[in-house]
């Protein structure tokens, strides 16, 4: 399925921005995954050092092998699921609206939509050493809609996006005024 179908893109609508969380924010999960990869090797070494006679048992080796295999496949699945939830967190800005798709887990997703003409105020925030170094941060969008505040975390270049978003809001307001005046 195309993303345009997923968001039910209108005929006059064009996608301006399609933003995911900054790639750097994925690195801690990657490191955690690499650390978890070493655990079965460490456990095997520990067990062999404690029970030296067990190490020669074929039952012990086969059992350890099967459980290690399950462990590696589990952490592979955990990593893949984390990637999917990370990658499906998406901010889509069109010339008409803003869509914030948040994937909380494998079976939990929130999609929030905001008409650009309802945007009241946009604030960008870069906080912390790594955020300043790699230029990612949080965007706070104050709205006049049902959801009073949109908070989008760990997005790249929040200041540039804030400016671009305000420009789009102005253009959308002008468009709405023109269509009202014409009617």
């Amino acid at each position, binding site marked *: 399925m195309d993303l345009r179908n997923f968001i039910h893109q209108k005929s006059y609508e064009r996608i301006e921005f399609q933003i995911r969380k900054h790639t750097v924010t994925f690195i801690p999960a990657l490191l955690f995954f690499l650390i978890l990869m070493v655990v079965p090797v460490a456990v095997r070494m520990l067990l062999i050092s404690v029970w030296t006679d067990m190490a020669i048992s074929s039952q012990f080796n086969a059992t350890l092998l099967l459980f290690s295999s399950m462990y590696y496949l589990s952490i592979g699945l955990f990593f893949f699921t984390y990637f999917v939830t990370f990658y499906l967190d*998406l901010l889509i800005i069109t010339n008409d609206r803003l869509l914030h798709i948040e994937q909380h887990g494998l079976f939990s997703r929130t999609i929030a939509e905001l008409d650009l003409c309802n945007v009241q105020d946009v604030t960008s925030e870069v906080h912390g050493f790594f955020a300043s170094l790699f230029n990612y941060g949080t965007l706070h969008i104050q709205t006049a809609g049902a959801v009073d505040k949109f908070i989008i975390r760990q997005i790249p270049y929040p200041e540039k996006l804030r400016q671009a978003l305000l420009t789009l809001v102005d253009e959308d307001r002008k468009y709405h005024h023109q269509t009202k005046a014409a009617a």
Partner: protein
Amino acid sequence: MITIPFGALLFIYLFFMLGFVVFSFVNVGHLISTGTVNRISIAVILLYFIFSIFITVATWILIGDVDWQQPLVVWSISWLTPIYSIGFAF
């Protein structure tokens, strides 16, 4: 002494693999249904499948010469013997 065939462990592995395959396809299905299939997601899917196939095939090869008919001792009273043989000196 309670024993079970050592091959019973293979059934545990089989059930695990069923769950693993289902969840893997749910993940891929999510990526396809949301229209986020691009170069990055395809690369990660490929890496994931290569990793999974490698682990499964390596396990299959390494357990090839194991005798799965041999009994696996699940419980033996002799395991408690060291506890009974503790002596107290007064």
